């Protein structure tokens, strides 16, 4: 049956590569319903993994086959910053907290992992204390103590050695001035930043209060590292596991495999069922081939978790049986256009508002692939999966196609009644951004705003062009296509990097447009507010202030189209991970 169906799809699979742009593809294709461990059929249905666990099972054993169309930035918990790496890493590391497992809205909250409970704030949020569980062990059987967590945090400080990892703890903690990292200054006492006061207590000392710290410590920088096994930048070759699996093989750039860690104790870990006996990961697999193998069942999981490639969309969406194997979540990612106030006449807020009013949101959504493949029309900055998000619309227009009259009125108020000319940048290797730029060009032309479009290579877009302060100023860039996904799903995790003007640096910026004292002031209030309800309200106020400033034009809150692997059990989309919850997965 499967062979027949795959054959029937063969021509469309190849042709879809060529025809995907015009929506080609399709073909009759039926799939066998997946069987649960008990033998009962789990009926595939569109979005079945969003609100419940699809094909639930407690069956242990088997090999989970995983493919990645690229490679990890690093397997070292101190040196990785990819969302899928954080998700997958829970197979071989444990952190102080982690996202609540499973589907549904609760997935964007954190629960204890190594810790017995969430952090205990004191000194108005400047000090955070975590008690870790007893009976925890590394893969070699040695006990995991609080000092191993403190050491892991301290080693992650060295950004010359660990260039990729997040810098949050470097900035938040009160590190001694003469501390250059555990390798360069091994004798410097770093207890002013992080310390183990006894075998089970880790204390973090912050420079200033910070309310979202429980989210920070779910990041892998708090995964324990035994000091005597630390080999600096080479540690990624063999990370010492604290999770349910350990490395069996690791061929850099090609593949690696994980097998059970006998010293992991399930009794200490309610978050990981650890069902497969083995996990095999293949790296740098052709992206279109990952989708083909996922459809055919040769691979169980596309670890990147960003959704199907355009070639496969043309085959999956028209086929009811294949579509029934997909989930289409809205993820905490915003595609947007920076409206840069450094470039006249956009230094006048009325001119920026003219851009807001003139934009055709429907055309922009279409440019990004439509409702299913692209995302839902964004009316404000924070996407729905962010804790406490509120949807509002300051620039509502009939049918979301823009309001030409209001745009012209804004242009008149700006002193540019006939419009103006400016430049819009986009990543030339991203067809959707190119289509967005063209859509903006057409929509803004309706009110006399002429856009000159400039595409640049994605690899140097932020370093040399749209994220480079000098380039933007010298070349009069008024609009720039951007995208941003949260580091963690609360207001700070999503907004800070793209709306806090104090994070702007010479190059590599994701924000060059929001430069508002009001926004900065609200961020300062929100990040220290320990009351969650008040804090969430403040982040909504930040969102509103950005929209009032008209310096970000939201385009779509991104959606991904995820395909559930054949023969995979316990498939559920987790809002915190913005992907399937990898720690839950098993195989039939």
């Amino acid at each position: 049956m499967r062979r027949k169906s795959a054959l029937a799809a063969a021509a469309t699979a190849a042709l879809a590569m060529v025809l995907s742009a015009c929506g080609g593809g399709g073909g009759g294709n039926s799939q066998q319903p997946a069987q649960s461990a008990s033998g009962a059929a789990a009926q595939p249905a569109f979005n079945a993994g969003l609100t419940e666990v699809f094909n639930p099972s407690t069956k242990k054993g088997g090999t989970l086959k995983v493919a990645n169309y690229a490679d990890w930035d690093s397997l070292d918990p101190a040196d990785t910053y990819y969302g899928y790496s954080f998700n997958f890493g829970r197979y071989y590391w444990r952190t102080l907290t982690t996202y609540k497992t499973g589907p549904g809205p609760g997935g964007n909250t954190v629960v204890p992992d190594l810790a017995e409970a969430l952090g205990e704030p004191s000194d108005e949020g400047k000090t955070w204390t975590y008690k870790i569980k007893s009976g925890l062990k590394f893969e070699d059987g040695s006990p995991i103590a609080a000092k191993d967590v403190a050491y892991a945090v301290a080693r992650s400080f060295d950004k010359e050695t660990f260039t990729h990892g997040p810098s949050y703890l470097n900035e938040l903690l009160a590190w001694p001035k003469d501390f250059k990292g555990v390798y360069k200054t091994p004798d410097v006492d770093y207890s002013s930043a992080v310390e183990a006061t006894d075998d089970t207590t880790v204390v973090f000392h912050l420079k200033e209060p910070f309310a979202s710290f429980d989210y920070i410590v779910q990041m892998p920088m708090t995964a324990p590292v035994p000091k005597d096994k630390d080999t600096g930048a080479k540690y990624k070759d063999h990370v010492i596991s604290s999770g349910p699996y350990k490395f069996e093989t690791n061929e850099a750039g090609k593949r690696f495999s994980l097998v059970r860690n006998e010293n992991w104790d399930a009794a200490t870990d309610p978050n990981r069922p650890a069902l497969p006996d083995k996990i095999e990961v293949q790296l740098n697999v052709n992206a279109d081939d990952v989708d083909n193998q996922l459809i055919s069942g040769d691979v169980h999981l596309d670890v990147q978790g960003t959704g199907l490639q355009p070639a496969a969309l043309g085959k999956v969406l028209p086929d009811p049986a294949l579509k029934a194997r997909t989930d289409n979540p809205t993820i905490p990612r915003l595609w947007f256009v920076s409206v840069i106030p450094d470039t006249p006449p956009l230094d006048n807020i009325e001119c920026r508002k003219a851009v807001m009013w003139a934009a055709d949101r429907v055309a922009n959504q279409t440019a990004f692939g439509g409702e299913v493949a692209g995302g839902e029309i964004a009316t404000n900055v924070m996407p729905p999966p962010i804790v406490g998000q509120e949807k509002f619309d300051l620039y509502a227009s009939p049918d979301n196609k823009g309001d030409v009259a209001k745009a012209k009125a804004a242009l008149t108020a700006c002193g540019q009644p006939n419009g103006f000319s400016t430049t819009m940048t986009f990543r030339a290797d991203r067809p959707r951004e190119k289509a967005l730029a063209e859509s903006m060009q057409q929509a803004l032309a309706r009110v006399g705003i002429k856009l000159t479009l400039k595409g640049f290579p994605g690899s140097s877009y932020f370093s040399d062009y749209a994220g480079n302060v000098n380039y933007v100023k010298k070349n009069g860039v008024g609009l720039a296509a951007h995208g941003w996904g949260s580091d963690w799903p609360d207001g700070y995790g999503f907004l800070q990097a793209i709306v806090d003007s104090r994070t702007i640096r010479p190059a590599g910026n994701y924000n060059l447009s929001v430069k508002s004292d009001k926004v900065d002031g609200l961020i300062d209030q929100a990040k220290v507010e320990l009351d969650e309800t008040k804090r969430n309200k403040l982040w909504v106020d930040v969102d509103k202030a950005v929209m009032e400033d008209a310096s970000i034009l939201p385009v779509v809150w991104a959606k991904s189209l995820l395909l559930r692997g054949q023969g995979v059990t316990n498939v559920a989309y987790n809002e915190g991970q913005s992907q399937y919850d990898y720690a839950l997965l098993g195989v039939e």
Partner: protein
Amino acid sequence: MLTYIIRRFIGAIAMLIVISMVTFGIFFVVPQWAGSTPEAMASRYVGRAATPETVHLVAQKLGFYDPVIVQYGRFAKGIVAGAEYDYGAGVEQCPAPCFGYSFISGQPVWPDLLDRMPVTFSLAIGAALLWVLGGVSVGVLSALRRGTFFDRLSMGTALAGVSLPIFFTGMLSLVVFSYGLGWTPPGGSWTDFTENPAQWAYNLLLPWITLAFLFAATYARLTRAGMLETMGEDYVRTARAKGLTERDVVVKHGLRAALTPILTLFGIDFGLLIGGAVLTETTYTLPGLGQFAILAIRNQDLPQVMGVVLFAACFVVVASLIVDLLYAWVDPRVRLS
């Protein structure tokens, strides 16, 4: 002959130096002309939203603050004298020829190149055998049966082979033969020859055929054209008049003369392939030099790019040298001097 080889060898080294300078210039000098700063370049190699301090440290570590000539000198010195790499917990020696350390992974480049070479070599050898045997045979038969159905069919097929890109034929064959019929393994299957020769060949069967299909087409058309030309020469008529068998006429007189341009092409094609069959390796997810080159360019990992470019250039230079030497054997009219 020896003088000729030495002279070519010196020329090859000069060529490699020029190639390395050009490659280095593309990645370092051109961005600076476009206004890129050391920090801007370093920001490609850090995590997103990295702090200015992190970017500065990385720029310093990668030597971006040094003058370009110093940076190039350091790279060149590594190749002849080796280099050292600070990995935090210690310092690692990278013996010559050290092509530097990856900006992304921090791993030395040279072992990676050596590690990936068997994959590309396996792919190139098998495919080359198939396309030479297939292409030349079909070309000869087509020439001898000019205008027949076989000639038209084979040349039509050859045209398709030349026209269809590997990423199309490769994906199509994977979908049909691997995921549909289940005759061949899925993409990404690779087994070392020393581990299991049968599995090695089985895993490479589809890539071999796909790659050979592309090249065989060119060889068939070239061989056919060459054979048609030589079979009309006076010396072929003379050979026939002398009473030689048709087999001798075709193989010893016709084919041998027609092989000279084929040999030139083969040398360059094979050298290029050993340097990395980029599309085939990417389509079939084979961890060879071609895939390595693509990943290096995609990640703007300069040491890896430099390494793989020089490595590939070496093969092309060596292959063309061997071809020049073989000329004298294939065509006695050629004399090396």
